[in-house]
């Protein structure tokens, strides 16, 4: 049985390799916001209030492109709707927490944190204070994201664009799913999702980001039926 502190630390350790992509991406996000002509306070406040990587950039790009705030808010809501799926998966492990703790821990749920904590949870179902792992991944992401976006806002794009560091984002997610490639059912679901995301890329409000997972989960449903 691991202590709360050990679980928290394990969460921090498990998520830290992803900072290779999160930190450059955060710097780019901060710098883009200021370049688009928004107040630095406003750009930073988003990291605190929304705390959702790509959706922050999209929000500012949509507004600076002349679209209404309604379009910007809707885009953020749709892009971040994937968290509903993360929550549905994680709820199994957070059931026993008090309502207040559930409300607090929810703020920390992000893509990489969900992915790494979910992997840990699946292997350690019997641990008592599992949620401390999620707090560890979430807090690490939160702190790095704040520092990174703030640095981008203050220092501007000091990371040269030619380096193409945005490419680390797909690489980070490849690292998350790559071990599941050997499972044929997962491979089918991944290819369905990937191709659907390209097919629906031009759908309004960046909704490909949730349309593709819904299609892929439908295929997953068919697979679970066939397995029986």
């Amino acid at each position: 049985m691991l202590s709360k502190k050990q679980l928290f630390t394990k969460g921090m350790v498990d998520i830290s390799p992803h900072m290779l992509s999160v930190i450059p991406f955060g710097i780019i996000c901060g710098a883009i916001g200021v370049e688009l002509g928004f107040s630095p306070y406003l750009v930073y406040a988003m990291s605190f209030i929304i705390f959702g990587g790509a959706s922050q950039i999209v929000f500012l790009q949509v507004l600076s492109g002349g679209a209404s705030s309604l379009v910007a808010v809707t885009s953020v809501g749709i892009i971040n709707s994937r968290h509903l799926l993360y929550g549905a998966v994680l709820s199994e492990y957070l059931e026993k927490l008090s309502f207040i703790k559930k409300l607090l821990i929810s703020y920390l749920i992000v893509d990489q944190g969900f992915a790494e904590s979910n992997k840990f949870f699946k292997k350690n179902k019997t641990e008592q204070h599992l949620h401390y792992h999620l707090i560890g991944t979430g807090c690490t992401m939160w702190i790095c994201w704040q520092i990174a976006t703030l640095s981008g806002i203050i220092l501007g794009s000091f990371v040269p664009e030619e380096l193409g560091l945005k490419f680390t984002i797909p690489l980070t997610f490849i690292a998350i799913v790559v071990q599941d490639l050997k499972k044929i059912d997962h491979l089918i679901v991944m290819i369905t999702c990937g191709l659907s995301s390209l097919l629906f890329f031009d759908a309004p409000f960046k909704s490909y980001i949730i349309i593709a997972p819904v299609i892929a989960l439908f295929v997953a449903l068919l697979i679970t039926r066939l397995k029986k």
Partner: protein
Amino acid sequence: MTWLSIIIAGILTYFTRMTMIALIDRDMLGDKIKAVLEYVPSAVFPAIIFPAIFINDYGAFIEMNDPKIFGAIVAIIVGYFSKNIIATILSGLISYWFLIFVVFS
């Protein structure tokens, strides 16, 4: 106005995170749904990976000889065998850099 929209977007985002954890009782989800939820990572992350590789900043499909495709293939191979996140990211990035700065420059 922009401030207000950010706050609304923030509340909306928070609700996407909180709803399934705090408001929905897990027993409401049937066994079939629980079995499908096993596939969430595989069903969500490729929607981030594919467009980031195959679609450029201007929303157009890239050429099949784009360095990003090569970088991604290297990352998949290295990641698969090393099971190491840092090795996956660095191998992909370095092979991408090798193409854009050495081969195609």
